[in-house]
């Protein structure tokens, strides 16, 4: 009997043995690696531009904040990108969480449906239009808010303003970024909260939990990974946003605005590239901008990869 020594038949190579299928598989597999090719291409080609810049400017390119020939340093811009994102996060995260709590747990189904569509519509507004709106509509209002903030809460370091000029501040730019982030973060958090298993919610309700305790002890811990991932996806978008910030932020290299969010002047790598590209005086300045782009890419890639790892891991856990 053959039950002791089994002879396995070759199934896997046979499964794709048809000649037309081999061509098809190769074509599709080739196309599937476009994403890798593009990512590698960006890293290599922008990295190649960053090398000579680092050779001429040294590490000062990353640690100083200056843009006057022959010295260039983008520290203020890198830091500024982060500061703007922090302002945006402070506004957008609570807003998105509360908005999705409303959509998932409080609103009637039809209201939630309408809101979902409106949030998606908000995500579809091009950033150049948000920039236009921010420049003409938001900025004047925002200046008034900032004056009041300074007037009543000026004793808090963040809300100090020496110049009396409230235009082109990190606050306004961060506010615009927050408006871009809210739909991105909300669409993730809404889905994450919506996936809280009904049996857990029922169990919490059967125990007499209030909405607050249900959120605090069931929904938020359960969806924690997804929520963090969603926030980081929004953060990745905020770090790389260019045009909406361009119209409302005054780019200042020196002094670096570290925390006075309602003081005029700040930085953003992405905006720097667009602002300086038109007036680049030669190949070397263009190379500087390409190098700045390389470091922006590295920064966003890192945030994005971490975000996706978190989202994917929780996605798998919940399956």
């Amino acid at each position, binding site marked *: *009997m*053959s*039950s002791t020594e*089994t*002879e*396995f*038949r*070759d*199934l*896997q190579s*046979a*499964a794709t*043995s*048809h000649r037309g299928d081999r061509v098809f598989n190769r074509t599709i597999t080739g196309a599937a690696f476009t994403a890798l090719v593009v990512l590698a291409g960006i890293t290599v080609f922008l990295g190649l531009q960053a090398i000579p810049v680092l050779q001429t400017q040294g590490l000062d390119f990353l640690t100083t904040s200056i843009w006057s020939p022959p010295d260039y340093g983008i520290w203020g811009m890198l830091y500024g990108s982060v500061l703007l994102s922090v302002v945006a996060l402070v506004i957008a995260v609570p807003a998105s969480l509360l908005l999705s709590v409303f959509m998932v747990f409080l609103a009637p189904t039809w209201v939630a449906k309408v809101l979902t569509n409106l949030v998606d519509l908000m995500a579809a507004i091009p950033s150049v239009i948000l920039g236009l709106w921010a420049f003409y509509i938001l900025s004047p209002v925002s200046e008034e808010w900032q004056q009041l903030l300074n007037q009543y809460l000026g004793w808090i370091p963040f809300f100090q303003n020496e110049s009396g000029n409230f235009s082109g501040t990190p606050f306004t730019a961060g506010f615009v970024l927050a408006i871009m982030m809210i739909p991105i973060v909300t669409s993730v958090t809404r889905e994450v909260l919506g996936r809280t298993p009904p049996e857990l919610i029922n169990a919490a309700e059967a125990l007499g939990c209030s909405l607050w305790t249900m959120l605090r002890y069931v929904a938020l811990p359960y969806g924690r990974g997804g929520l963090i991932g969603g926030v980081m996806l929004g953060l990745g978008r905020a770090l790389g946003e260019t045009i909406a910030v361009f119209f409302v932020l005054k780019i200042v290299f020196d002094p670096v605005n570290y925390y006075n969010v309602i003081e005029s002047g700040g930085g953003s790598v992405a905006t720097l590239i667009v602002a300086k590209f038109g007036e680049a005086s030669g190949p070397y300045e263009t190379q500087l901008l390409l190098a700045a782009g390389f470091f922006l890419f590295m920064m966003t890639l890192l945030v994005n990869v971490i975000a996706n790892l978190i989202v994917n891991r929780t996605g798998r856990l919940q399956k």
Partner: protein
Amino acid sequence: MATAEYDDVRIDDVQELEREIASQRDANVPIEMETRDISVWFAKRKVLEGVSIAFPKQSVTALIGPSGCGKSTFIRTLNRLHELIPGAALAGEVLYEGSDIYAPEVDPVHIRLKIGMVFQKPNPFPSMTIRGNVLSGLKLSGMKRSNHDDIVEQTLTSAGLWNEVKDRLNAAAGDLSGGQQQRLVIARALAVNPHVLLMDEPCSALDPGSTLKIEETIRELSKEITIIIVTHNMQQAVRVADNTAFFLATDGNPGHVVEQGPTTEIFGNPRDQRTLDYVNGRFG
């Protein structure tokens, strides 16, 4: 509990016996397909062991047994659909017209053309019309046959659907009822002129009326081609099948054939106690 006493009988011995009987009985009937000692694995799990069945030409063979006994897995090895599942493995031989369909030089696409299949859930192609569905096999396999209109009429008639759809051949296939869809799928399988038709519980998702129609179709078709049908419904096996094989998997062990032979024997005079219990509805 009752299985303890059965274990005394060596499975292999039973099969040996069966094979002898089968070969004596069918000496004068040509064999269309035959499996020799087929064992099947999913990843590391063995789900079938040592299945040897012969399928005579132009006959209907029913594969019966409780859920999870491996009969659906078995039928998918007969036209090489089993290998599409990642981690699938197989040992043994499947002979079609005397040659092994798993031989390295064999193109599975050709095998599937000769050995058609109908599934549990009707699966007409939603993007095609009724007519398009019938002819889809020709298109997908690149087979050249002339007289498309004749093929459509002939196969739909064989499948017992022609009168119901002849006026709306260009309607979407999704508009048909479940039973009609299943007969459409049968017509689709017939259009490529298969010699064998595998049916994996073709009626389990259908109402009794449609089931009867499909059983009639099966009887009609068996005048031309060889049919192998997996069924849960023992009355159906009695109604349509010439031969029957009873599959069983006892807890944790891979499935195997307990008994096979003419349907009348299996249901009227089974030799194995387990077969008797199963066909009388005592388990499964």
